[in-house]
């Protein structure tokens, strides 16, 4: 029996990159995809409709957490066995999809994260970004007892159990690291595998220096409070 696999593509103001990303995804006939248009203020909605791309448009902006959760609720509704998160901005290479799915089935884990750092890759992030990643790696080893080299990676695949869990409960902002802590502490198995990441095709990263401090502080507090109390 073939398993039903959904690719969730959260998109907020991605009019430049969305067509390229989705056209690449459409090459993979064995996977379904859904673009979650998170109340974009640019032409993302019109572009999605013009091209007839599969999408769900949120009438107002919910932020990354609410948008991604919409994808998981969609996956839950329509009975998908696996869900893959993939950024709309072209950073995540669809060529890795087969690899993610194959590894996921082989290892039988609950969440598999695509990592840029497991082997040498072409990724070069800013210093703040790399510091943050190192810090989160340390935090996860301390609190959740998992060694994730690329904890902020949004390129990830989860199984049905996690889909159902995320459909009910998903962090509002900066969810990537927090969900690893939650899953690991609930006894779900979280592992990672190597993927390639490109420089973004359009748009700007949502993470500025001030935000990254907030990101680190928020994840630390929440991980500590929600894990131990």
């Amino acid at each position: 029996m073939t398993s039903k696999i959904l690719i969730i593509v959260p998109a907020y103001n991605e009019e430049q990159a969305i067509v390229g990303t989705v056209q690449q995804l459409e090459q993979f006939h064995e996977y379904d995809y859904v673009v979650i248009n998170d109340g974009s203020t640019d032409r993302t909605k019109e572009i999605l409709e013009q091209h007839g791309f599969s999408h769900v448009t949120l009438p107002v902006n919910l932020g990354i957490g609410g948008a991604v959760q919409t994808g998981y609720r969609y996956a839950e509704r329509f009975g998908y066995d696996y869900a893959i998160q993939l950024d709309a901005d072209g950073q995540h290479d669809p060529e890795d999809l087969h690899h993610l799915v194959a590894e996921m089935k082989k290892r039988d884990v609950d969440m598999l994260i695509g990592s840029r750092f497991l082997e040498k890759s072409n990724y070069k992030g800013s210093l703040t970004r790399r510091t943050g990643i190192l810090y989160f790696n340390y935090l996860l080893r301390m609190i959740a007892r998992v060694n994730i080299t690329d904890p902020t990676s949004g390129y990830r695949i989860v199984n049905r159990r996690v889909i159902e869990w995320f459909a009910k409960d998903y962090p509002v902002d900066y969810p990537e690291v927090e969900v690893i802590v939650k899953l690991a502490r609930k006894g779900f198995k979280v592992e990672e595998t190597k993927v390639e990441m490109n420089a973004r095709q359009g748009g700007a990263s949502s993470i500025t220096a001030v935000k990254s401090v907030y990101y680190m502080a928020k994840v630390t507090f929440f991980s500590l409070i929600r894990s131990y109390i």
Partner: protein
Amino acid sequence: MNTVYLIVIASSLFFLIVVIGMTAKNKLTDQYAFMWLTFSIIGVVLAFALPYLNDFARAIGISYLPSLIFLLAFLVVLSLLIYHTHLLSKQEHRIKTLVQDVAFLQREIQEVRKEDSRS
């Protein structure tokens, strides 16, 4: 009876009237209307009891009554704020679910329309 005493009573009565007015015009939902009515009645009672409060403050070792009132008022306002943030979070969560549901429904409507136009 001094001026300050009169001002305190007048403002507490004014507050009570505002709350009653807002309740009558349905500008406050029942549970909040009731909460504010209770607060404003307590306010009026305290305003009238001001002289006795002075004695009470002295009895428990507070020589300056306003500091007792400020402390109590501060604690009440703080708990109200936390309560409101709690309500706000609950509302946000509900709105998020509704927004997602609306988006799903819109998608379904579009799909049905497409099928209709084909047949």
